[in-house]
């Protein structure tokens, strides 16, 4: 189901079409990767849980090699990233679709980098890595901002409210009224919430593909076909498009939709499968 097959990528990794050092460590240019990728399998779940998402994992991979975000070697990072992903999948670890989306994006960039270049001079704007670099930088800015917010002086951790009560007879105070129903509803909402948060973050996010599957199904019926393209909403950007795509593939696999294409390169139509 994932759009890429990491194992194969790994075999023809290092096409070496451009000889470019990916790291400078203590003044020495490195173009061969240190072979320290092995991570004990049981540590993986823990590691993955420690990441806030694919961008976070990528940042970690880049930082661990002391690489500069601006100068990442996409084939190498893609290889490492897909290694992680494939080990996860081998372990039948349910991966959030976001991680697969990123793998797809990396593979796309990598293939663009492999295309022959018209001009020797690679223009900054034409660099297929530009968007990824921009996103990594932007994410890092907010990852840092989150750390700074955590360090801010905070009520009930660093400072506390100073309060005193009124002495003397109880004044006539208009206090909020509360009904038993309010209390019952409050507890039900707590229970609901704690039930939801029992799934850990990653399996929870699988829902985004599943949610999308449900959305698509609700838009389809058995009588009429809709065009494949109409299922996509460009406003959602690349991520949304890929999630929709994954959702359609999943629906197909689960035999919930029919997909029809009458001639090659012709329109693709989708409808709900007859039960």
């Amino acid at each position: 189901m994932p759009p890429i097959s990491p194992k194969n990528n790994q075999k023809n990794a290092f096409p070496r079409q451009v000889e470019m050092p990916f790291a400078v460590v203590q003044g020495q240019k490195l173009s061969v990767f240190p072979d320290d990728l092995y991570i004990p399998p049981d540590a993986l779940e823990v590691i993955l849980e420690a990441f806030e998402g694919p961008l976070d994992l990528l940042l970690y991979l880049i930082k661990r090699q002391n690489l500069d975000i601006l100068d990442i070697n996409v084939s190498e990072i893609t290889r490492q990233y897909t290694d992680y992903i494939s080990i996860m999948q081998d372990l039948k670890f349910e991966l959030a679709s976001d991680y697969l989306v990123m793998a797809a994006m990396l593979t796309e960039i990598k293939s663009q980098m492999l295309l022959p270049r018209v001009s020797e001079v690679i223009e900054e704007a034409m660099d297929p890595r530009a968007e990824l670099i921009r996103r990594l930088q932007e994410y890092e800015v907010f990852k840092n901002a989150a750390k700074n917010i955590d360090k801010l002086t905070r009520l009930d951790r660093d400072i506390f409210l100073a309060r005193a009560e009124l002495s003397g007879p109880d004044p006539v105070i208009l206090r909020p009224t509360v009904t038993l129903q309010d209390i019952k509803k409050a507890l039900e909402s707590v229970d609901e919430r704690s039930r939801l948060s029992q799934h850990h973050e990653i399996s929870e996010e699988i829902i985004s593909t599943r949610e999308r599957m449900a959305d698509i199904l609700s838009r389809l019926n058995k009588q009429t076909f809709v065009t494949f393209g109409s299922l996509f909403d460009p406003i959602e950007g690349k991520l949304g498009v890929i999630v929709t795509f994954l959702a359609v593939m999943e629906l197909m696999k689960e035999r919930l939709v029919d997909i029809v294409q009458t001639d090659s390169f012709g329109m693709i139509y989708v409808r709900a499968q007859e039960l």
Partner: protein
Amino acid sequence: MKSLLLRQIIEGALLLSPTPLTIAELENLFSDSERPARDQILATVEDIQLDCRDRGYELVEVASGFRFQIREKLASWMHRLWEEKPKRYSNAMLETLALIAYRQPLTRGDIELVRGVAVSSDMIRTLLERGWIKIVGHRDVPGKPALYATTKEFLNYFNLSDLGQLPELKVGENMEANVHQPTLGVLESASSEITEN
């Protein structure tokens, strides 16, 4: 410990605590190595009392310890604070009250664990002030956290004769039927869990 810092710590604790503090409880603010003598704490409390002479608040000793309170003569102005707006309680407050009502007795930590967000001292204070909850003991774990439970006044306000009359909880579709059983379990085991104050 310098007497200024000692004084600040005692002042802070008395203004933070939702309930009055005894001298023993004030002693417990300090680690063994820094703990001042009881006399010194008493003298500091007296010092603070003197210093408040002209303030809008005073430090008084009530049955269960010392507490800061606002002077009685200011009551008519203080009442204006509430006059217009009986503010609504926040969802956070209602959830805290609901958890104490259905799962009592439990600690602030228990509530945070279930709610997933912090419970402020202020929320506890408001519920204590309103007379709806009380401290029924302390759990016998490090730190001896206070165990909260609802009061008779809580039952009166809601016109209940006992907790069994609380509305039954709707069990969510996927929610296992474990909502009620453990709750009752907690209530029954409650007495064994409580260590007397």
